[in-house]
């Protein structure tokens, strides 16, 4: 029971992640019409288009004049994360998050964290990769990141059959397990960087209550984007940095209820 409570958001997130894949899979295998396509572009209830705005950005840079459905779909997704979800895509939808979370969990169990060597990659590198994706798309006339995206490979792999893409996913897993803590999602992935940028001002946010904090620092230990929790134990305020994936791990590990999800505007008024 205690375990369940301590993992309530993680369980919920896995449920959402798996349900999304299952709906896509069912659409392909059994003709379900709830959610068709994949994370690149999909059709919800046969009417509402959804599309990956980062892919759209690359394709536009590549010079493609895209169809209405993709444009509308990308607008819907952008609005949703910009206004509400923040970087929630990473915590709640992306299948690679399951892989990197498992790697991270194993790191803790095997205590690999304790032999950590000097960090060689900076967390801002994802924004450079993001810029590079756009630049290379423009130069080569193709969506550059989509050619190598482990997210796309895993997502399609789970829906249509995995193939050699499995090697790329294994690479990400091993990198995160032995190479670097939160190496892929926290440092390299340009899609995560993209959602960090557009989700910066979203309403759903984690809030810290300094008065309750006992400085156990379990939250910063578990957080995949540690720097965003810089205020813990110091000031009561919202986690405002876009890199927070809204995964809620910090909220559930805190034994003192010093962290909780809140809505930015409402809280400000009260």
């Amino acid at each position: 029971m205690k375990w369940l409570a301590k993992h309530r958001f993680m369980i919920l997130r896995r449920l959402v992640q798996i349900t999304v894949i299952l709906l896509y899979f069912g659409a392909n295998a059994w003709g379900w019409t709830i959610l068709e396509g994949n994370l690149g572009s999909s059709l919800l209830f046969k009417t509402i288009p959804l599309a990956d705005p980062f892919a759209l950005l690359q394709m536009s840079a590549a010079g493609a004049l895209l169809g209405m459905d993709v444009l509308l779909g990308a607008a819907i997704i952008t609005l949703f994360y910009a206004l509400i979800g923040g970087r929630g895509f990473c915590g709640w939808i992306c299948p690679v998050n399951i892989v990197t979370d498992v790697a991270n969990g194993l790191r803790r169990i095997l205590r690999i964290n304790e032999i950590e060597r000097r960090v060689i990659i900076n967390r801002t590198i994802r924004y450079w990769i993001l810029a590079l994706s756009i630049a290379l798309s423009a130069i080569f006339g193709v969506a550059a990141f989509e050619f190598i995206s482990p997210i796309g490979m895993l997502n399609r792999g789970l829906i249509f059959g995995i193939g050699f893409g499995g090697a790329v996913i294994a690479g990400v897993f091993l990198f995160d397990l032995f190479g670097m803590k939160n190496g892929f999602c926290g440092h390299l992935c340009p899609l995560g960087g993209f959602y960090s940028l557009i989700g910066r001002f979203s309403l759903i946010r984690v809030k810290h209550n300094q008065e309750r904090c006992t400085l156990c620092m379990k939250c910063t230990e578990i957080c995949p984007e540690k720097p965003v929790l810089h205020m813990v134990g110091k000031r009561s305020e919202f986690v405002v940095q876009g890199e927070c994936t809204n995964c809620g791990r910090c909220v559930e590990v805190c034994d003192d209820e010093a962290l909780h999800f809140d809505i930015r505007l409402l809280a400000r008024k009260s």
Partner: protein
Amino acid sequence: MSKEKLPPLSERRRFLLQALQGLGLATLGALTWSAYLDEASASSLYLRPPGALAEKDFLSHCIRCGLCVEACPYDTLKLARAGDNVPVGTPYFTARMIPCYMCKDIPCVPPCPSGALNESLVTKMAKDGKETLDITQAKMGVAVIDADQCIAFWGIQCDACYRACPLINEAIVIDASRNERTGKHAFMAPRVIGDVCTGCGMCEKACVTEKASIFVLPLAIAKGKAGSNYIKGWDEKDEKRLETQTGGGATTVTPVSDQKAVDYLNSEEF
């Protein structure tokens, strides 16, 4: 003489070195990535779904959602997996395994959200201006016959491809000629009419030889190009090109060109 100890790096120098390091690594990444993109988008030995834009445009438009794949009732279309030698995640088909059955209602094209599959490329306008989907407009590729291996060219009776073709007698015809070797039989050799063939691959699938002796190649590979300087003078439509042609048709004017070639031909000397 003892070696002088170097002074610690100044702030400024440290900053510059870090910037240089970042720049260097970014260039390294960009070069590797570019090389891969170049490689991955260079080959084009695969067949795209009906209504696909020309390969270069197709690659920049397709968002790799798989909606076309899901719509195909024959499981013809596949989304490329890493290692398939097709840009990863894009739809293609292998005619010898499952050809395109040339569905009358072309279910794969309308769901495409990005415009990579374009209805206008498989639409026919009736005389009254009404537009209807017409799969015979499709140009997925063109069938090519290896006359050395096709047993019909050996004199053995086989018209499997001809009968399999959904456009029998239009896209494949049979040429009969006398078999001089036996003196009493005929060669019944298949011939593809390139303008009509849609590249569906039904013929390739049906071919009886161990490896198909008729196979579909993408247009860009199978087709030659005569260039604008050859004109079919006996074809009224083609001759119109003379009037509309711009560029390349420049006329050099020299003192001698006072007299036109035609005048010269018509002068008494001839």
